[in-house]
């Protein structure tokens, strides 16, 4: 990377229907947004030139993100307010550009620095069914989740092979909030929300739905209504 490039950190969101985009689809869409905005982005040299950028940790298909980030390298300086306006005017409603700032070239990558991920997960009943005791379902869900967290280990099949996840490193915290009283009139029938903080590193990462698979199985009549990554943070402890 030559000294004459400018590293711009862009904050965006992936919301609404576009939560169902894959990471590669998001990357392509944001690249096109940057081209439409007319920013003087830096390209790699060689036979097949491409835009120089680095995205933060990927969001799975179906998971929304309220504060996502990418770094893009520019060939020339564009005042931040002008760059932001151009990007916002060229962005999709459900992939909005929220903000940006220039950062030091020496800062570590987003993948390395933003390792704490906060999620908000909304739970609903699968469908109204008299045969299922809904009161017990939420308790069962929480009990299984707690037991899994207390055990400190999660064993799952990944591509047909058993894999062990160390929850002592990966699961930083969780809190379940019972919303049955508050949302009794809610059309979507949200019964609870789970706030979850996961840690990701080069050694491994865990997706929320992997952690929730067994608690949901045990609870029988609960389903995930939505998963939203509400924030990404640096892990100051490490």
């Amino acid at each position, binding site marked *: 990377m030559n000294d004459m490039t400018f590293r711009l950190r862009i904050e965006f969101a992936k919301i*609404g*229907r*576009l939560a*169902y985009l894959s990471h590669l689809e998001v990357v392509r*869409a944001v690249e096109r947004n940057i081209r*439409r905005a007319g920013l003087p982005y830096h390209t790699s040299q060689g036979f097949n030139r491409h*835009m120089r950028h680095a995205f933060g940790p990927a969001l799975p*298909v179906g998971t929304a993100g309220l504060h996502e980030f990418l770094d893009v390298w520019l060939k020339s300086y564009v005042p931040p307010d002008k760059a932001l306006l151009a990007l916002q005017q060229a962005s999709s*409603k459900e992939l909005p550009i929220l903000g940006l700032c220039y950062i030091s070239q020496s800062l570590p990558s987003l993948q390395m620095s933003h390792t704490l991920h906060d999620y908000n997960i909304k739970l609903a009943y699968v469908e109204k069914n008299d045969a299922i005791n809904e009161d017990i379902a939420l308790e069962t869900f929480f009990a299984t989740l707690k037991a899994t967290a207390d055990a400190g280990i999660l064993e799952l099949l990944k591509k047909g092979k058993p894999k062990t996840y160390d929850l002592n490193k990966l699961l930083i915290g969780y809190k379940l909030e019972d919303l049955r009283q508050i949302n009794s009139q809610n059309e979507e029938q949200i019964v609870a929300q789970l706030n979850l903080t996961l840690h990701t590193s080069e050694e491994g990462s865990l997706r929320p739905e992997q952690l929730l698979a067994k608690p949901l199985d045990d609870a029988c009549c609960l389903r995930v209504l939505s998963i939203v990554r509400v924030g990404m943070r640096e892990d100051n402890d490490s």
Partner: protein
Amino acid sequence: MAHSLYSRIEPLFSLVEKPSRYLGNEYQHCTNLVIANQRDNNTNQDKKGDASVYDIVFCYPDTYEIGQANQGIAILAACANKLDDVNVKRTFLPWLDMSELLREHNIPLFSLEDYMPIKMADMIAITLPHELAATNVLELIDLAGVALRAADRKEDDPIIIGGGPVAFNPEPLADFFDVFGIGEGEDLILEVIETDRYMRDSGASRIERIQKLAGIPGIYVPSFSLHSADFKKHALNAKGQIVKRIVDDFNSTPVLISPKVPYAEVAHDRLTVEILRGCTRGCRFCQAGMTSRPVRERTADSILAAVSDGLKNTGYDEVSLTSLSSTDHSQINAILRRLQHLVCDSDISISLPSQRLDAFGVFLAQIVEGGARKTGLTFAPEAATQRLRDVINKNVTDANLLDAIQSAFLAGWRRCKLYFMIGLPTETDEDIVAIATLVNQAYACAKDSVPEKQRGQVRISVSVAVFVPKAQTPFQWCGQLARSEVQRRIALLRNSGLHKGIDLHWHDPSTSLIEAALSRGGRQIGSLIEAAWRLGAKFDAWTEQFSLAIWEQAATDIGVSLDALATRDFAIDEPLPWDHISAGVSKEYLASEMLCATKAQTQVDCSFSYCSSCGVCSDLGVRVRLAGKRCA
């Protein structure tokens, strides 16, 4: 009362492959759509009660990633969008996993713009891109919840109109459509919408609306039998034919500079600018070449402006200059020079599909790059002997091929694909063996054109398709080669000494058999298509989905022979199932071209020299419109 289906469809997204196929909401720089945003939450509005709004859904009978790339739908939707109070929507055929879930949950096919059932629209417009999409058309109509056969449709059902290449012989699909639009749709679609909206608002019945549409030039109503008084309600020419519509002044039509930019990775995921329309090279097997005449070019200035605006509006990193024969454009070198200047020092690349061998020189080899260079160049000699190339009127030589290969590999290309056909009329074993000989020469030429250390990177692949006779072409009277003979000739080619470094691929003769059976069929073929669909045939153009066994069973069930349908020769004076449809080229011209083919006599290209008297310009009142002088 109409309801958005989104809340019922969203839970299915996590159960299907590529949910981005079903999201809609693509970025578009500017639009005058009346639709989605204002209507998304307006779930209780009965659209049919809203007299000021006319709903039309453009449908492509394949997945989103195939259909979204189709220029036909994009152009027609853009035209329809110019009309006030018209809701223009799109839908594509859901992949197998989603269609199964839709049926399981009793959800009808929906539009991507507002997730309303497409059955609620006033009109459903289905593109008919090729014969192998026939069962997909039925699947689409059935998923929509509309009666499959036009005769069974009810008063409230939308009018279903078909158009596109297959509509030049509409009879195999005639039972499933209320109306066909023949030819270019830019003007036609506006007349259809405005006529039908007026009739609907006047309280006309469904049949009255269809009868009124029949009077629009280029419209064919298949329920009006050929010799009935009803048939005369069509706008007919002196020969009693329905004549294709055409846009005479193509250069004045707007270019799509603000298309919807898909999120999913689609085929041809790039900005597309149609630089010219029509091709008069006169290849005798080519339906597009006969049905899209005459040649009409955009000017270099309008192309450059469109590319510049289109790239700014979309953010694409590639632009493709499309047409049936882009290198034939009279200003192609100037266009490419100016484009090169426009995109220099960026990651934006230019691609130029449909390059003719005799027009590909050193300049083009150097300038066209990017996406195309990643995958390699493609040339289509079609046949390997000069005699057979003269039969098909390809008008290129072995020397043209070797020169093009040399130019390409000297300029840095390392991959090239060559297309040939087998089973062409008059073909002999000598023509088959010659494919191996010519390709070996091309391979040697490619290797000689690159530095010694890079010779290992040279890749030449050969793709061999089986000739499929098409309606409205000089070869429309010729049957397809029998399957057993196709297999023998493929085996002959494989044993003809092709260099081991050359990759040889050939099309499955089974799919070509179905194409041939459908392409020249009459109305009875509709029963075959329906029987195949009911037995599970769909996505026939997808190799892994195609099942010859299903089609054979369907043929047995309705008492026809696929081989007989495909291999049948028509007598030159025999009535043809598509005789009532005219693409402008006279039947006499096609017959004279067929005669020339048997004598291996070639025909001129009127865009380069004198008129070949095909009949298009005189019958349609149009002319060849070039931006400059074409030089051979």
